[in-house]
């Protein structure tokens, strides 16, 4: 039976200091894993709250809000008024005079539409005047609460989980192993990036606790420069948090790019490395080139709020669409920072578990880099309707279509890799297959949103929510889960429980599709995004049934992910030892003990075979003692 090596990177030095001041890329990967996964589950809780709120029309939380509690608890700039909209607003059409909710009598509500001398006075009013005061107070409070929840769900998922997740955890652990290096190029910078991440997370946490961040994760001005009135702290806190997290992302990207260029073991050329490295390289390029722009945008947003420098706020001579350009110039390459590591993982899962040479190595490698570079020219498709000029919408739509090609090529290549393989139905393979299916749906619905005419109808509706969840959750998160299961034995040296893994994979797949496939219909039927409540519409009951089903799916997805956490953590400590090469992989990380020693290899590796040479080399011949096969260097023809 396999047994653990007595000395490896986890037990070779004890104590909290040895972990917190470690220079070992493997330990930093585990430090990242702890923090990033807890951010994932925290944001997951926020997602569940959002879904429960939307399960039923009307306010779910703060049901029993006491009446004497004044409604404007949120200190919204105009004083949150529960009395509904009033046309009798003054000439400048500014928002209606704030009327304190508690004192609003029903009479005031009826007359509010102004002296409209209409034959049929059943003019529609968004908040039906018949609502009792308690209902109005609870509606106002739960609205503010909901806005905060979806903002924090978005911000924490994007900045704290999905951008650092694969590069910082699996990338950190596997990059030096896969290219035969002792460590990443700058170990101190690697540790610094973890501490910078913690600082950024602290800022974000403070913004959560301080509590008035309700701008959405995109911080669109002029709302983000006005919300919260003169209480600047929480918006400045979260934007500073994003600015600092940007540095952590830059440090990781810079570190990986230099490592791949300079630290490869002798004999390993660019086409002898696993495609995981190509994916991580493309991600590093995007991280280094895109993140500074969000840095300067966040700094200027803070200056706009604090000093009023008049660059984004139209009342001070700025232009809000310019903020969107700056924001999306980072955020679209950021979605490629999210998906490219997902692609990177799938290469390894598909080849190792079907024991077959990758189909089209160069095609996949170069398409990763192509996506990374093209990703910088397409951000305008987020802004087709934001008032940008028609000419730029055309240009962005045209370039956007070309970015669909490389991802399509990748999917075809992976499917072709399965042909004539010997496919083991292990959990990582199940995750890889569900990635192929779900990411295809995500990618194809992107074409709906790229086509200008259709985007007018679908923009900012639940169709967009479904699309990016299919690409992000169906793509990156599922690939990440597959990668975690695939390399869990290598990181901790212990195997997880295969039965529970398959159960949770099934739950995740079913729950995910229940939640988000219904949202495609919700979106095309016109349900707008970021709506706390959809009562009072003509389609309320249609939306209610779809939202109900979607919320049910969210519970199933949540359950699946919860089970995953349990058995993986259990396996890390008490799983039975997994041996050096449980899946029969050929890349260098399987040519060392699991968990690997601190200096990664027992003996320094030299290139002996390609990572996907399943047609020439049997994985069983590989062993940790000789760091791969001790064969004379016969490079592939």
């Amino acid at each position, binding site marked *: 039976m396999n047994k653990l090596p007595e000395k490896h990177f986890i037990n070779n030095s004890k104590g909290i200091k040895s972990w917190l001041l470690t220079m070992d890329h493997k330990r930093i990967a585990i430090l990242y894993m702890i923090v990033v996964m807890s951010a994932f589950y925290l944001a997951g809780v926020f997602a569940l709250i959002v879904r429960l709120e939307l399960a039923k029309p009307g306010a779910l939380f703060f049901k029993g809000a006491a009446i004497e509690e004044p409604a404007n608890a949120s200190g919204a700039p105009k004083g949150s008024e529960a009395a509904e909209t009033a046309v009798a607003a003054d000439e400048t059409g500014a928002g209606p005079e704030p009327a304190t909710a508690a004192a609003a009598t029903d009479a005031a509500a009826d007359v509010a539409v102004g002296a409209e001398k209409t034959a049929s006075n059943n003019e529609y009013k968004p908040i039906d005047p018949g609502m009792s005061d308690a209902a109005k107070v609870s509606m106002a409070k739960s609205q503010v609460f909901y806005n905060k929840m979806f903002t924090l769900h978005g911000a924490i998922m994007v900045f704290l989980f999905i951008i650092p997740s694969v590069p910082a955890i699996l990338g950190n652990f596997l990059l030096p192993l896969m290219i035969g290096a002792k460590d990443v190029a700058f170990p101190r910078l690697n540790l610094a990036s973890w501490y910078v991440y913690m600082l950024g997370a602290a800022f974000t946490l403070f913004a959560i606790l301080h509590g008035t961040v309700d701008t959405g994760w995109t911080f669109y001005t002029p709302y983000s420069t006005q919300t919260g009135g003169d209480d600047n702290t929480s918006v400045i806190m979260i934007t500073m948090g994003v600015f600092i997290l940007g540095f952590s992302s830059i440090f990781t990207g810079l570190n990986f790019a230099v490592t791949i*260029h300079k630290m490869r073991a*002798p004999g390993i050329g660019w086409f002898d490395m696993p495609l995981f490295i190509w994916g991580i390289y493309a991600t590093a390029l995007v991280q280094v*080139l895109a993140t500074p*722009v969000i840095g300067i945008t966040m700094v200027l947003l803070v200056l706009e709020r604090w000093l*009023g420098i*008049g660059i984004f706020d*139209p*009342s*001070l*001579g700025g*232009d809000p*669409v*310019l903020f969107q*350009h700056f924001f999306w*110039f980072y955020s679209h390459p950021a979605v490629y920072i999210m998906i490219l590591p997902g692609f990177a993982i799938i290469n390894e899962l598909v080849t190792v578990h079907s024991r077959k040479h990758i189909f089209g190595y160069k095609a996949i490698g170069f398409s990763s880099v192509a996506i990374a570079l093209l990703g*910088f*020219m397409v*951000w*305008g498709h987020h802004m087709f309707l934001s*008032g*940008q*000029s*028609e*000419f*730029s919408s055309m*240009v*962005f739509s045209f370039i956007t279509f070309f970015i669909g090609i490389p991802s399509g090529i990748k999917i075809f290549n992976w499917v072709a890799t399965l042909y004539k393989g010997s496919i083991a139905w292990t959990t990582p393979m199940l995750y890889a297959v569900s990635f192929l299916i779900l990411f295809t749906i995500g990618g194809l619905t992107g074409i709906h949103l790229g086509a200008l005419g259709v985007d007018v109808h679908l923009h900012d509706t639940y169709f967009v929510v479904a699309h990016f969840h299919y690409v992000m959750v169906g793509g990156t998160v599922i690939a990440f889960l597959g990668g975690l299961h695939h390399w869990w034995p290598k990181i901790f040296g212990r195997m997880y429980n295969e039965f529970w893994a398959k159960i949770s994979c099934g739950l995740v797949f079913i729950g995910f599709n229940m939640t988000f496939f219904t949202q495609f219909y919700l979106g095309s039927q016109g349900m707008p995004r970021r709506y706390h409540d959809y009562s009072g519409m003509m389609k309320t009951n249609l939306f209610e049934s779809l939202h109900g089903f979607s919320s049910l799916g969210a519970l199933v997805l949540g359950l699946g992910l919860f089970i995953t956490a349990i058995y993986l953590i259990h396996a890390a400590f008490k799983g039975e030892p997994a041996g050096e090469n449980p899946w029969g992989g050929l890349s260098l990380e399987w040519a060392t003990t699991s968990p690997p020693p601190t200096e990664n290899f027992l003996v320094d590796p030299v290139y002996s075979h390609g990572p996907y040479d399943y047609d020439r080399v049997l994985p069983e011949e590989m062993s940790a003692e000789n760091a791969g096969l001790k064969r004379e260097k016969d490079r592939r023809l």
Partner: protein
Amino acid sequence: MSAHSDERPHVLPLKVYYGVGAILFILTAVTVLTGKYLHLDAMVEDVFKLEFTGLNLMLAMVIATVKGTLVALFFMHLLYDNKIYMLIFVGGLTFLSFFFILTLFDTVHRGRVYAERDTIWTESEIYDQLRANPENVLSIHGHGDAHGSDAHGDDAHGSDAHGSDAHGSDAHGDDAHGSDAHGSDAHGSDAHGSDAHGSDAHGDDAHGDDAHGEAEGHEGHGH
């Protein structure tokens, strides 16, 4: 990795550094002189009857780019180093140009289909407030002389009718450009107002010899 690296990395002769330094100095002088005294647009218009705007800027940019490439190639050794660094440097600039060009597609063509869709640039409210109480407004020519109402024509359209500043309302009609001698600046009456910015009291500020906005050197600043 080259197993054996020559001990002495590539070192440039001394005169390359001094030469490049000298060229940079000269180019700086050229760009300053052309910037201040040479009005290319006007010259091109009388000589070639062609309507161009921003030629000065283009010339300044060409000179700046020449200086930039000199610094990058010689001082930063891009010419002699591994070409990957040149690729990284130029790559960064290309991505920056992607950003500028594609965003300019939007900002320049906004009103192209319908003029009404173009951005309406309104003056921000801070100037209305400044006009409303001009006494603590500072000015280029010196401290806090109340600009109150010697604006173009009668500005007293209900916005700042209060006559608190000692000047009273200057003569109507067009204001004498630039030469509004403020010798008799009623410094006393609103001394507290004008120095509210924590800058220590200057005593007699450099009122007299303020040569049109370009405070020569810093003799005037006593701190």
